[in-house]
């Protein structure tokens, strides 16, 4: 389907994607901390930010061949789509996000 | 001294009698006579050398033989001369010898295979010689074997 040359270029891209994992992770972690605070204070924006991160991850992880990560992200994505901040079940969200973080960690660990 | 033309008969006489050598070829027409005393063991002998004109080794031309026939009649010895680099001249010399023996008588004969100095072109085959004829490989150019050849003939003649 794709020439060997393309495969090489894609491999390069994939490597870059893996290298971007730590940044993505931090962003999600930051959102997590803030949401904890925000739920108590009632700020709606934070959920959007989190949603954005997670939604993108859900969309890109599969394309780069990281199915499990994509799956974990989709779960959070679906959950957040329907809810407003008030409706969020924090512990549930946190545990979903933790699974997501775990997937990220696994990728970073495996690929150095 | 008989043989094909250009074998060195005149040069051999010149070397033996005058100790000289001229490398230019001057054909002998007719006969030249030279003499030299050879110290044979019995007594000194005066050799009267008749240097004959040369025969054509390739032609069955009897003209030279006819012309020099008169001279050959009185000879006491034959010096056959051939050019060691031209095999045809050996055949001619032997032919003359056999013609002589048939016409006149058997007399002492020696064969001079001349031009021995031309080592790279030497093509002389000794095997064609009859045992009766002594062979000398001579060079009128550098004198090789010249004295020896004439002295040997002198010896043979003095023994008769």
């Amino acid at each position: 389907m794709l020439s060997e040359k393309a495969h090489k270029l894609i491999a390069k891209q994939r490597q870059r994607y893996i290298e971007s994992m730590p940044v993505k992770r931090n962003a999600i972690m930051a959102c997590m901390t803030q949401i904890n605070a925000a739920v108590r204070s009632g700020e709606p924006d934070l959920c959007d930010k989190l949603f954005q991160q997670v939604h993108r991850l859900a969309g890109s992880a599969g394309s780069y061949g990281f199915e499990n990560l994509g799956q974990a992200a989709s779960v959070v994505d679906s959950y957040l789509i329907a809810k407003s901040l008030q409706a969020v079940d924090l512990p549930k969200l946190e545990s979903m996000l933790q699974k997501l973080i775990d997937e990220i960690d696994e990728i970073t660990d495996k690929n150095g | 001294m008989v043989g094909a033309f250009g074998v060195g008969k005149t040069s051999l006489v010149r070397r033996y009698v005058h100790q000289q050598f001229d490398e230019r070829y001057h054909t002998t027409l007719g006969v030249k006579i030279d003499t030299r005393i050879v110290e044979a063991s019995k007594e000194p002998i005066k050799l009267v050398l008749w240097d004959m004109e040369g025969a054509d080794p390739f032609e069955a031309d009897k003209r030279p033989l006819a012309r020099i026939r008169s001279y050959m009649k009185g000879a006491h010895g034959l010096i056959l001369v051939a050019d060691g680099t031209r095999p045809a001249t050996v055949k001619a010399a032997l032919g003359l010898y056999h013609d002589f023996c048939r016409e006149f008588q058997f007399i002492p004969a020696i064969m001079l295979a001349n031009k021995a100095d031309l080592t790279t072109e030497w093509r002389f085959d000794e095997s064609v010689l009859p045992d009766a004829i002594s062979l000398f490989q001579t060079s009128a150019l550098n004198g090789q074997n010249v004295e020896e050849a004439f002295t040997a003939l002198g010896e043979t003649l003095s023994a008769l």
Partner: protein
Amino acid sequence: MKRVSRRAAHYIRDELLKRERFIVIALDSRQKIVSVNRSTPDWNLPGLIRGSVLPDSLASLLNAASDAAEPMVFPYLELNGFFVDIHVLGDSESADLVIHDVSEAHETEQTLQQRAHENSLLSEQRAALNSELAELNEELLLRRRQAEQASAAKSRFIASMSHEFRSPIASIMGYADLLQTELPDSDNPRALQRASWHLLTLVENLLEQAREGEENVSLNPTHFSLDRLAGDIEALFRTQAAAKGLDFEVTSSPYGIDVECDELRLRQILINLVSNALRYTRQGQVSVHFKHRDDTLFIRVRDTGRGIEPKDIERIFEAFTRVGEGNTSGAGLGLTITRQLIKRMGGRLKVESEPGAGSEFRVAIPCPCIQGEHDEMPPLSGTVLWVDDDQDILSLYQVVLENWGLRVITGSSITEARDLFKIHDCPVVVTDMHLTDGNGVELLSHLRAEQPDIVGILISGSGVVDLAPEIAGKGIRAFLQKPIDAELLYKEIAAAFAGE
């Protein structure tokens, strides 16, 4: 002359004596000179004195003539610088020697004889040289025949050895293939394959050389990817070029096509040409470019090496010849075989070179393009605008689409996309549903307003199947889910450009 009168006889005698010179010597029985008579006073010979004995030379003649019945003639005898005929008349009791001066006649005849003998001697010499020449010729012929036989034997040996090499090499290549499937993430099996190919081509070089005279060697066309071949050549020589500090580049166009050709021989040609280029280049660059067009494969190998003198351009193709100084490596076979192979494949080879500047070898080989099982994907062409707020997606699919031959413009927001759309002509637009400043449907509406015939493809990460009624009829051709199926994407884009 019997009945001639005395008067006439005397007259003849007198006339004769006017023209010729004679000396007549009368001898007694002891060979003593009794009298000496000269026909003319100005010709004499020494040693002829009345009363003395005959000189030895003349005496010996007398002995020869002694018992002759008739007078004997001794012609052309040299006597004191004169040439004389001597006629001996009489017998042992009394004899007359008539000495006749024939010097003039002798000189004339001698000149003629001299010339004749000289010619004859020259002819003999020439004949001797000719026969020597003939002998040498024969020996030469014999030697040559022997050399030819030895050479043929050697060729047969090389051929048989080369055949023997082929099967273990084939075995190695087979195992390399297996390793590739067992270790898909490793580059090593591929490197092993390339090295094996290299070895194989060297062996094939030998075989080709040994087969030089044969006409009917068959070609073995196979299907293979041109990109892969280019990649292999690049990888094969990359290290060698780097070690010499040379830039080395292999490019090919178009992307992703398969061709039908004798791959092995093509590799041989390439390896030979590139090895050569690298060998003779000390600084600068070696570049290899493949182009496929009109069922012909064009190859260009260019270097910035020492170049080839015009007088040597033909010689470089001679077997076992290396031109120029300082060449010790290589057998000198490469170019010979290369040209042979190209000819066998029905192709053309051209060389251009400038001494000191470099050389360029151009090859054209007939080579059909294959649209086979490997490839339902002919290259596309056109410009696509891809809009997504995720840079990771943009980077990835830019690579994929460019690989298909497309030109890709990327944007990450509606605003950016609209700006880009104004500058670039983009008949096909792929956009994510979810953008920072709006959604994909809105974007497409904006763009359609400016250019109604654009084709849109929507991508989304979430299950938005329920949007389908909304988007129907709005120039949106397809709706794809992330992760995107590449084949599907290709089909949709291809169809979009085809106007379906």
